[in-house]
């Protein structure tokens, strides 16, 4: 499988300077690509485009040469966000949010140390680190082929960080999943990635 971005250009307001200009990137299954750039250069924006949340003004996102939007059901490209508290419905119990698109494998909850009791609680009652583990479980559906990790571990303690990355790497290996890893932590990128790219990519 291959996830490809071809010549993506995107700006948030019409007529303003694009955040991304003519960006191309491809990730094959089993590859773990690190992405780094200073703050405000469009790392999250690129993830949003790759996961299909936003439509680029120019360029295309292809999964196995088919446009991403043609895939039905839960999107095979899932994104995990920098701020878990912003991507869960504050008025739903976490169990309901988790089952949004179908049941979640019990093994996943065990591996991520998600307590049964948490599912009965509201997002405001969990710490940032607890919520993020929960967001991971939600994104790792059986149909997920690519995972976009947008600075997913900076809010976790170091032991939990290491646990989660070991789990994710194993899971990616087992399923032949491709990862895009956004982080400011060079040591982390070196540990988990097979190659590292820096924005803006030098265009050929």
């Amino acid at each position, binding site marked *: 499988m291959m996830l490809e971005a071809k010549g993506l250009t995107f700006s948030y307001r019409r007529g303003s300077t694009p955040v991304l200009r003519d960006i191309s990137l491809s990730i094959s299954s089993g590859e773990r690509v690190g992405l780094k750039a*200073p*703050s*405000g250069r469009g790392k999250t924006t690129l993830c949003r485009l790759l996961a299909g949340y936003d439509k680029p003004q120019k360029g295309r996102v292809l999964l196995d040469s088919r446009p991403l939007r043609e895939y039905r059901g839960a999107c095979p490209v899932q994104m995990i966000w*920098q701020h878990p508290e912003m991507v869960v419905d504050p008025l739903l119990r976490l169990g309901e949010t988790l089952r949004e698109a179908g049941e979640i494998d019990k093994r996943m909850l065990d591996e991520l140390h998600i307590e049964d009791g948490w599912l009965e609680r509201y997002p405001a009652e969990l710490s940032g680190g607890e919520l993020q583990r929960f967001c991971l479980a939600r994104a790792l559906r059986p149909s997920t082929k690519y995972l976009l990790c947008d600075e997913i571990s900076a809010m976790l303690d170091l032991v*939990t960080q290491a*646990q989660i990355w070991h789990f994710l790497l194993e899971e990616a290996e087992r399923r032949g999943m491709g990862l895009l890893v956004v982080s400011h932590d060079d040591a982390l990128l070196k540990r988990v990635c097979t190659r590292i790219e820096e924005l803006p990519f030098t265009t050929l």
Partner: protein
Amino acid sequence: MEPVLQIKHLSIDFTRYERGTKRRRLTVIRDLSLEIYPGQVVAVAGASGSGKSLLAHSILDILPHNSHVEGEILYDGTLLTPERIERLRGSEIVLVPQGVSYLDPLMKVGTQLRKGKKDPGTKERYRIALNRYGLGEETEELYPFELSGGMARRVMIASASAESPRLIIADEPTPGLDAGTAGRILGHFRELADEGAGILFITHDLELASEVADRVVVFYAGETIEEARAEDFADVACLRHPYTKALWYAMPKHGFKPVQGSQPYPGQLRSGCHFAGQCETCREECLERETIPLRPYDGGRVRCLYPKEEGQV
């Protein structure tokens, strides 16, 4: 010299309802004491969900309504009552919140920073504050949704440091920032501390903490388990508690090794050492004792019966 902030025997409970009207009390922070002197940066590190943010919120008196706080919080030697903190927060005592959701989504950055003030002096002050963190005048015209994660962080930090605070409580201010920017921000915290402010710096980044802080306090399951000097983190042999050692070994550059298991949930704490479930040097005595005291040890403090024992690797 009097500490800027002195916390004595702080405990925080939450009252929760489960199954109808059955009430249950959950203790999330137990018997916590902490002092910050003028000119000091004290870093608080520790497990996710160990109560670091709750500590910050209890100082500012912004805990949820179902919480119950015991113990004393003193600011400048006088008790910090709800009336007093209401007067001081936002000017003398400021919080850099952890979540970017603390920004008002319906207000432009500039307007919410200035809190309604329109005089040229205030405008100038905030322009300088934003500028210090690499954000230009155009940022003031943006809404929070137009900011990147790192920019939102910098806006919150600018907001806190534009007033001249005497106590800054920064709840994980650096995620989403590149090393250069994070270093600049902490350098500025250091400057404020050197001018006499006290800083409580909550973080997971031990490397940053050991660079900028004077002391590092490590939390686990709602308790202080170690107080160390910042320089102790240069060498794992200087660290006292097995959990602090585990944090050190989990750093990507020190092996990236996780210990198994997780921190016990507040409702499921047993007597004895709370870290027992993850500790590789745990002995029977650690489980049999009612509580493990926090005691002075080797220039710091530790809550462990057998500190500095190897076997974590």
